[in-house]
C-alpha cells in the first residue's frame, strides 16, 4: 500500500518538476529581451561556460578520436574496408557523438558550476538583493547563462569534433599505416555539410539550451542551504543528461 502511494507521489513529483521546468523556460524566454541590455554579462558568461570548458573538451575529444580510430580500424579491417575509417568516424561524430558527448561533458563542467553559483546566490540572498536593487535576476543572472549555453555548446562541439578527427587520423594514418589520401577522400566523398555537419550544430545548440536551462532552474529553485546546493548540483547532472539523450532521440527520429 505505502509503496504504491510512494511511487505514485514520485510520479506526481516528477511531473510537477517537468511542469515547473517548462514554466521556468517560458520565464527565461520572456526575460531574454530584457537581458539584452546586460550584453556584457552574456559575453562574460560565454567565457565562463565556453572558454573554461575548453580543456576538458579538447582532452576528451582527442582521446575519443584515438579510441574510435583504433576500434573502427580493427572492426572495419574484418570487412576489408579500412578505407572508410575516416568516413565512419566523421559521420558518427558529426551526427551523434560530438553533440551528445560534448553535452554530457558540458553538463558536468559548466552545468554544475552554473547551478552551484546560482544556488549560492540564492543561499546568500544575492538574488533577493538584486530584486531589492530593482534588477531582475531572471534577466541579469539566468538569461545570460542560457544564451551563453546556446552560443558556446555548438562551438565546443565543433572543437571536440575537430580534435576527434585529428585523433582518429593520428591512429589510422600515422600509426596503423592507412593511406592519408584514402582517409580524407573517403571522408570528403561521404560527408555532407548540411545533413551531417550543420545537423550536429543545430543539435548541440538545442543541447546547450537544455543543459543551461536545467542548471539555472536547479540553482534558482534550490533550497537555500549548503545541503540544498549540493543536491541541486547532482540533480543538474542527472536531469540534464537524461533530458539531453531523450531530446536527442526525439530530434533524430522526427526532425532529421
Amino acid at each position, binding site marked *: 500500500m505505502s509503496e504504491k502511494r510512494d511511487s505514485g507521489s514520485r510520479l506526481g513529483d516528477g511531473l510537477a518538476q517537468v511542469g515547473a521546468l517548462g514554466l521556468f523556460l517560458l520565464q527565461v524566454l520572456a526575460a531574454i529581451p530584457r537581458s539584452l541590455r546586460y550584453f556584457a554579462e552574456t559575453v562574460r558568461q560565454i567565457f565562463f561556460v565556453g572558454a573554461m570548458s575548453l580543456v576538458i573538451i579538447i582532452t576528451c575529444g582527442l582521446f575519443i578520436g584515438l579510441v574510435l580510430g583504433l576500434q573502427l580500424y580493427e572492426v572495419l579491417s574484418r570487412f576489408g574496408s579500412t578505407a572508410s575509417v575516416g568516413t565512419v568516424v566523421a559521420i558518427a561524430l558529426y551526427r551523434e557523438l560530438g553533440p551528445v558527448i560534448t553535452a554530457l561533458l558540458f553538463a558536468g563542467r559548466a552545468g554544475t558550476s552554473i547551478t552551484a*553559483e546560482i544556488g*549560492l*546566490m540564492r543561499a*546568500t*540572498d*544575492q538574488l*533577493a*538583493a538584486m*530584486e*531589492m*536593487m*530593482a*534588477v*531582475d535576476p531572471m534577466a541579469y543572472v539566468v538569461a545570460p547563462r542560457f544564451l551563453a549555453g546556446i552560443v558556446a555548446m555548438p562551438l565546443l562541439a565543433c572543437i571536440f569534433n575537430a580534435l576527434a578527427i585529428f585523433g582518429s587520423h593520428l591512429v589510422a594514418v600515422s600509426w596503423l599505416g592507412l593511406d592519408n589520401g584514402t582517409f580524407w577522400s573517403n571522408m570528403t566523398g561521404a560527408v555532407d555539410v548540411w545533413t551531417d555537419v550543420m545537423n550536429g550544430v543545430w543539435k548541440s545548440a538545442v543541447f546547450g539550451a537544455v543543459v543551461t536551462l536545467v542548471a539555472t532552474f536547479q540553482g534558482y529553485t534550490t533550497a537555500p542551504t549548503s545541503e540544498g546546493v549540493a543536491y541541486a548540483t547532482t540533480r543538474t547532472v542527472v536531469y540534464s543528461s537524461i533530458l539531453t539523450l531523450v531530446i536527442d532521440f526525439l530530434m533524430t527520429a522526427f526532425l532529421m
Partner: protein
Amino acid sequence: MSAISTSHTDELVRIRGLRTQLGSKVIFDGVDLDIPRGRVTAIMGPSGTGKTTLLRHITGQLVPDAGEIVVDGHDLSKLDRNALFDLRERIGYLFQNSALLTDFSVFENVAFPLRQHARLPEELVRNVVLMKLQAVGLRGAAELMPAELSGGMARRVALARAIVRDPTLLIYDEPFVGLDPIALNQVVKLIRVLNETLGLTSIVVAHELSAVSRVSDEIYLLAAGRVAAHGTPQELVRGATDWTRQFFGGEADGPVPFHYPARDYAADLGFAQVRP
C-alpha cells in the same frame, strides 16, 4: 533624490489589518503598524514571528492574504511590476548576510545599483562610490573582493551599497547578528549617523536589546502574529506586559513557551494507562 510623497501623513509606511498565512502557519493575524518619517523604528520579536516576512511585505516581494500596506503614499497591492521596481529603487535594503555579489570587487558591488539604473559618467560613479565607502570607513578596501572581508566589513560594504542611490527608506534585516562588540558598535553608530545626516527613515529588525535601544526611536514588539507592544525603548523596558518582561528579561519560559506544543508528557511516556 527628493522623493517627498504627495500624501502629507507623518508615516512613510502604514500597515493595517495585515494577515498572512504561509502554508498552514498563520504568520500575521491583524497587524497594524506605522513607520514614522525620519526616525529609526525597530521591529523586535522572538525567532519565527515573521520579522523578515514583514520586511518582504513592505518591499512588495510577498503579497499578504489580507490587509493594506501603504509605502510613501502608494498602496502596494495597486502597483504593477514596473511601479514596484521604481519604488524599490528608493528603498535600501541591508541583508542579514550582506548578500554582496561574489564576482565583483567591493567597489563594483557598491557601484552596481548605479550602473544598473543610471548612465552616469565613470568619473561621477567613482566619486559617489568612494564617498559612500568613506562614510562607512572602507574607502581603503575598495579593491578587495567580498571573500577577503570580515563579516563586519562585509556588512558595512553592504550598507554603503544600500545607501549609494540615496534612498528614502533604509531597511536593516538583523544588522547585528554575528558581529564582535567592536563591529557591532560601528554598525550602531553608522545607523544613527546615516539616519541623521541623510534624512532617512530606517527600519531595523533585530533582537539584540541593548543595541536596539541605543539605535532606535521606537520599538514594535511582534509576537504570536500581533503587535504585542509598541513604544520608545524606555517605555517598553519600564512597561510591564508579560511579553515585554519575558522578551527583554530574556526569561526562558513565559508567553513564549519553553516547550513546543506537545501531547501530555505522561501520556507520551506511556504512564497514562496506570491512572484510571
